[in-house]
């Protein structure tokens, strides 16, 4: 890959970029250089200023001071249109697609030089050509909302290629992808590099940095703390340290494995798809004991979401049984399940975990408000809620201006800590955590994992759904691998082999391994 990088004028040069937000110095005198044919990994914790820096490159924000040069020329970028005209395009974490329009319509949306009636057949042909060239499988007539997340991302990439982007900025591109889709993305990016395009990608994942990039630049609290060629990095640990500025515990404190009695049990759970033609959850059975963490591995979308929603009463099961401490909790209401002592860290923290427009304090008390601790009959004891919230903010080190701040103004990591604090505080024996560290930086991830292990050491039963095998191997006691709604196998972590788990995740039967 390296031979493609040339020493000509850098395609992007950002010089001494500074950007303030109310109360925050988001970027402080940051320099960045991207050469032709290069992949630059921009690494940093949540809130380190990575997205802000990139948003200035595409004209969504304007720097308070500093200069941006594209292909050696001073550029005045005021809008994404300006940056696109210079060949710079960005794929955001949240896709900017219109759900009920077709792929082709989305790709041309917002293009200014199109005639009043766009020549759709020509456009579709161009899209098909491009998708063939880069191996991006996309059908121009499909409607966006029928596509998977991976396919939507391909549409976003096509959108940029269609407009002639030479420099691509990808904001955590693999966070939403399955491992298979991530591999495809790798191939696509390699293909683009070979044509002389360049890319910057924002990420949290160390292994991606090592695998993808030529150069890595680390931001910490708005400042650039290191730029170096990726192949000069000896240990991944070093990168992590640079990012947070202290040593990260890669092995977590955990007590001895000391399982108690069975607390959460699933027996032959089945959920039929809406069309009724297949089982999205297919005869799933397992048991979790107190003091035990059962990890659920699997590529996202293989029934994990349905499983956790069935256990928490959010989804009806077609057949089978859920037993909590030996009692039947099949198809009970979410409230009944909560009352039995189950806490739930949901998969989608913004949509399911918090109420963004309510304060941190209110969000922290959303489980306990109905108990005598925070309310007297049906009247909420406001002053007690305040004390309670302050205590949790302190214990779980939630960074917020005050408990009255709306949760939506917090960073992703602190939102997750808010959920974690609420669920762990109210946990009555069983914790169900779904992708709890997704999208979090190293520091927050560590806090989340350590807190989950603490629950286990206290004798609680934990179900941990994760996409990262590494996390499961580190945190769980047993790992159940899910594929197309089934549990392929449940293995003890101490006997688990990564390759074996990978094959189970890909749907290879046990007997064939």
């Amino acid at each position: 890959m390296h031979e493609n990088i040339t020493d000509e004028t850098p395609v992007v040069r950002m010089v001494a970029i500074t950007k303030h937000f109310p109360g925050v110095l988001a970027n402080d005198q940051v320099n960045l250089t991207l050469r032709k044919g290069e992949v630059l990994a921009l690494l940093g914790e949540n809130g380190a200023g990575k997205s802000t820096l990139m948003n200035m490159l595409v004209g969504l924000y304007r720097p308070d001071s500093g200069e941006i040069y594209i292909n050696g020329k001073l550029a005045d970028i005021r809008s994404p249109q300006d940056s696109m005209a210079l060949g710079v395009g960005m794929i955001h974490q949240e896709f900017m697609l219109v759900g009920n329009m077709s792929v082709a319509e989305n790709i041309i949306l917002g293009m200014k030089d199109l005639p009043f009636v766009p020549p759709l057949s020509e456009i579709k042909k161009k899209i098909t050509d491009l998708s063939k060239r880069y191996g991006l499988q996309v059908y121009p007539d499909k409607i966006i909302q029928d596509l998977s997340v991976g396919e939507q991302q391909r549409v976003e990439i096509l959108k940029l290629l269609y407009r002639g982007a030479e420099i691509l900025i990808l904001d955590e591109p693999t966070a939403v992808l399955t491992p298979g889709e991530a591999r495809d993305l790798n191939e696509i990016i390699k293909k683009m590099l070979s044509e002389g395009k360049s890319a910057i990608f924002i990420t949290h994942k160390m292994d991606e940095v090592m695998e993808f990039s030529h150069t890595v630049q680390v931001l910490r609290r708005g400042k650039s703390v290191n730029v170096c060629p990726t192949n000069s990095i000896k240990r991944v640990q070093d990168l992590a340290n640079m990012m947070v500025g202290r040593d990260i515990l890669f092995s977590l404190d955990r007590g001895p494995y000391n399982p108690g009695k069975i607390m959460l049990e699933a027996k032959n759970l089945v959920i039929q798809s809406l069309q009724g033609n297949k089982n999205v959850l297919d005869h799933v059975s397992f048991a979790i004991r107190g003091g035990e963490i059962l990890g659920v591995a699997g590529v996202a979308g293989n029934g994990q979401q349905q499983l956790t929603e069935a256990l928490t009463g959010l989804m009806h099961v077609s057949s089978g049984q859920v037993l909590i401490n030996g009692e039947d909790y099949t198809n009970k209401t979410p409230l009944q399940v909560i009352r039995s002592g189950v806490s739930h860290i949901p998969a989608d923290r913004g949509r399911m975990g918090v109420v963004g427009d309510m304060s941190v304090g209110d969000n922290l008390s959303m489980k306990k408000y109905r108990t005598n601790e925070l309310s007297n009959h049906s009247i909420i004891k406001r002053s007690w809620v305040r004390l309670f919230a302050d205590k949790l903010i302190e214990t779980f080190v939630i960074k917020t201006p005050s408990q009255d701040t709306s949760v939506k103004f917090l960073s992703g990591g602190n939102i997750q800590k808010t959920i974690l604090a609420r669920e762990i505080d109210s946990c009555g024996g069983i914790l169900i955590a779904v992708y709890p560290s997704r999208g979090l930086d190293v520091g927050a991830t560590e806090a989340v994992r350590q807190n989950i292990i603490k629950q286990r050491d206290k004798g609680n039963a934990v179900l941990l759904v994760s996409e990262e095998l590494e996390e499961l191997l580190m945190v769980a006691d047993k790992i159940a691998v899910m594929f197309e709604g089934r549990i392929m196998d449940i293995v003890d972590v101490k006997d688990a082999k990564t390759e074996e788990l990978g094959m189970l995740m890909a749907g290879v039967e046990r007997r064939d391994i």
Partner: protein
Amino acid sequence: MRFALEKRDGKSRKMTILVPIFSLIISFLLGAIVLAISNANPIQTYGAMIKGAFGSPTKIQYTIAKSIPLLLCGLAVGIAFRLKFWNIGAEGQYVSGVIGITWVMQFWTFLPQWAYLPVGIVMGILFGAFWGGIPGVLKAQWGVDETLATLMMNYIAIGFAEYLYFNAWKAPRGNMGTVRYPEFAWLPKIWGKVHSGVYFALILVVVLWFVLYKTRWGFELNMIGKNQRAARCQGVSIKKNIILAMLLSGGIAGLAGAIDSAAVTHCLTKGVNSGYGFTGIIIAWMAGLNPFVSIFIAIIMAALETGGDALQITLKLPSAMGEVLQGLILIPLLAGSVFTEYKLIVLTKQKEEVL
């Protein structure tokens, strides 16, 4: 020079207060344009309206009396809006309330005299709650769109009321309207035109404020309104709360109808669909769903109506001018609400060059 919107790092408290005040002022400016186009001197017209609404004790009494059903309808709508349940059927629920009380007044003659009024008011509440509960159940059970359901049910209620006062319940003499309620069952007046319904309204303001801001149920409604999925994950029953909130919302609109007919019209007749239910939407929204603020907004809205009536007499302008102003109030408010979360920054030429 250019303008840009920049996101604030929190919701601005100052702006949540200033925006409604400024939008009120802007809407009066917009109204002035409308007046100028219709060849009326805006200052003179506003003067006449203020005089018409507050110019004498009698006029103040009229305005206050009118603000009572408006306030109640605003409170009713506000409860449903908290859940993002778009109840635009307060008008129909109001009419149902009037039908309820009229039924008791006209046909429950077995009641002792003292029981007419309380039983009638309770019946009005029940009728309103029933009429509001139907779209609530439809939404909770089958996801039927509440905007359409509540809107259309207005016309059913109004049509049914017409059938009653033109036909089934028509008083023997005359060609429309039911028999007048017996005088002993009227809601007593306390100051000229102002009747004791004002107590109901004010007590309800306090009670609702308490329920919405201080109780578990209010907390649950807030959660549902701001993020339904998250509320469900926390064990809050969405279906149950939608139905409960709509029963309460409809019940209060029904109470508004019962009180107004027991105190003012004393029968079910033409004009029962007074538009109070629709104006209630503006009141709830202007007040930011806050019961206490609703009091002031309701008085302003009432003043626009009584002031508008005065225009017809003094300036020979259509009384609908008041309604035009009522409608104009909402537009700048909706547009202005962006400033609670964003602030306007002015980029001067000089500053831009620095950037």
